[in-house]
């Protein structure tokens, strides 16, 4: 262990200059190798197109460490001097075109947003066939969208957009291939009314519909309340009538019962109650004889 530490300490004076030399020399060496095209590092989803004397000599799209010399032969060594290396990304990209103007069958101006994906499928065509492939692709998508959607019913335009998107894609795809692009998914991302007045009219229509709903709801509520009240009045009046008729019914039943047993008893009962009530009433009482002319008697005494 001590020997190892001693040897490391002894190695230190050489290590620091060595490290500094490596720090400078290795990057310079690798840079020169790259500059002379001895090797190329191709990243994922990347293509490198090599031209020499104005001609495309080949493409490397296999990711990793690549040696142009093995692919293109000795002329690869001339590329740094008389040619050029183009790096093209082949990853999936997207673009959103807003507010493309389309008229519906009814003549309504609509704003359409088209979102599409694309990737470079042929780097050579992409670089040299068209000076502005993106712009051309956009123009084609726009033109195809307008031709697909123009004069369609507004309802279809709004509700059937996915199938319309597929139509747009089918139309544009062959054209995009010419410029080295392969078109991915295409979606009609937005269909909107551009005329403010129309938007306001539709809003007003919906508001009126909601007002109508409110009125109907209110009316329905009033009807239901009225129904409850009328049903209640009916049931209450039934009950009150029942209450009013309960006395005659009960008293009558009792008197009938007594009368059925013995009418004389009933007569007596009533007489007893009359007398008792008369006594309790504190009324002025005159006792008159039976079978006499009461007025003569009273007049004479009075």
């Amino acid at each position: 262990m001590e020997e190892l530490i001693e040897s490391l300490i002894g190695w230190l004076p050489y290590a620091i200059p060595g490290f500094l030399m490596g720090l400078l020399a290795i990057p310079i060496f690798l840079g020169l190798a790259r500059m002379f095209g001895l090797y190329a590092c191709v990243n994922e989803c990347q293509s490198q197109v090599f031209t020499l004397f104005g001609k495309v000599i080949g493409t490397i799209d296999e990711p990793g460490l690549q040696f142009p010399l093995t692919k293109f032969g000795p002329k690869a060594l001339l590329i740094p001097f008389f040619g050029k290396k183009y790096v093209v990304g082949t990853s999936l990209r997207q673009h959103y075109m807003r507010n493309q103007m389309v008229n519906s069958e009814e003549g309504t101006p609509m704003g359409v947003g088209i979102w599409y994906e694309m990737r470079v499928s042929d780097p050579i065509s992409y670089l040299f066939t068209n000076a502005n492939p993106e712009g051309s692709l956009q123009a084609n998508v726009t033109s195809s969208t307008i031709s697909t959607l123009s004069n369609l019913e507004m309802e279809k335009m709004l509700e059937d957009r996915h199938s319309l998107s597929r139509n747009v894609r089918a139309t544009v795809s062959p054209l995009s291939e010419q410029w080295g692009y392969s078109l991915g998914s295409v979606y009609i991302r937005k269909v909107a009314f551009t005329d403010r007045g129309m938007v306001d009219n539709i809003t007003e229509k919906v508001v009126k519909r909601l007002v109508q709903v409110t009125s109907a709801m209110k009316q329905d509520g009033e009807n239901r309340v009225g129904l409850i009240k009328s049903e209640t009045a009916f049931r209450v009046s039934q009950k009150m009538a029942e209450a009013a008729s309960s006395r005659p019914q009960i008293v009558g039943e009792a008197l009938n019962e007594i009368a059925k047993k013995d009418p004389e008893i009933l007569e007596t009962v009533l007489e007893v109650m009359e007398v008792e009530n008369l006594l309790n009433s504190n009324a002025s009482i005159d006792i008159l004889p039976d079978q006499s002319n009461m007025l003569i008697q009273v007049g004479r005494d009075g």
Partner: protein
Amino acid sequence: MTYSVFRAGIGGFYTVSPDQRAVVTSFGKAQRLREKTLQKPSEMTSEEEERYEFPQVRVVGPGGPYFKMPWQRVRKVSVATQAVDLSWDPSKAQDTIEAVTKDNLTTGINGQLRYRVSESNLYPYLFGVASPLEHVMGYFVSVLRERVANFVDPRGQALLSDAEPSDADAVVEETDSAVELSEGVSINDLRKNLPLLNQYMEEQCRSTTGRYGIELDAALITEIDPPGEVDRALSAINSTRNQVAGDLSTARADSEQQITMSARAVEIATNNAQAEVAPLKELAETLSQIKKEGGSDCLRAYLRNLRIPLFSKAKRVIQTTGTSEKGGI
């Protein structure tokens, strides 16, 4: 040599945190496990599967220290769940996104997407797609707007029942439909069925894993903002609904009270009548007993006896001469 030792030894170690996954590239190339992704979401068509064909790469899990060579690069990515506003658009500043409903109303929509980078399909996220989140948003918003434009309440209630109620059941049906009178107004249908809309969006976006290497954890559409006047009209519906409910409750309470009162009135009248009848029955029973024991004469005697206090209370007594002792008073 010394530089290489230092470069490889000191700069060659790396760690991956728990919320991260890493992919190592050598000279720019990621190490592949297979050239095609094993599982493809069933939501994708065969043509789409072909278009979104990405290789499966070796993923370095959390932990370390790991060692890499100087010509290797480590691409780390967070696989933790993240959230993004529905209105997020790098090319446009906006607070909400617009959508047109089935009844052509332009409304604002807002919410949040919860997503995470798919560990099982890291290639598209790291290499295959230039801006994966933009793609996810583009796809999501397209599908969402299409759905909003087609959305109707799944229960498909009729707006206004034309049927005339012919019996009690019809009345009940009519009152039930009245509560749902606002069915068929798209904005109302959407607001009432937000969970359904969110569920639909989640189902539709399952393919984003295969497409862009992003798994959608949840679509949370939280706001559907119609124009102010529509919102006020919707509030009026709500107020009316509450008012109607209140009026109905009051009417039912009054009704119950009145019915209870009337039932009590019947009970009171019955009790009063029973109270009136009780002494009659009792007296009749007593008099029957008197008659049973002493006959009608005894009954008459009892009556005569009962009248005696009348003489003490009488102001005057008119008596005819020659009357019998019977004294027909």
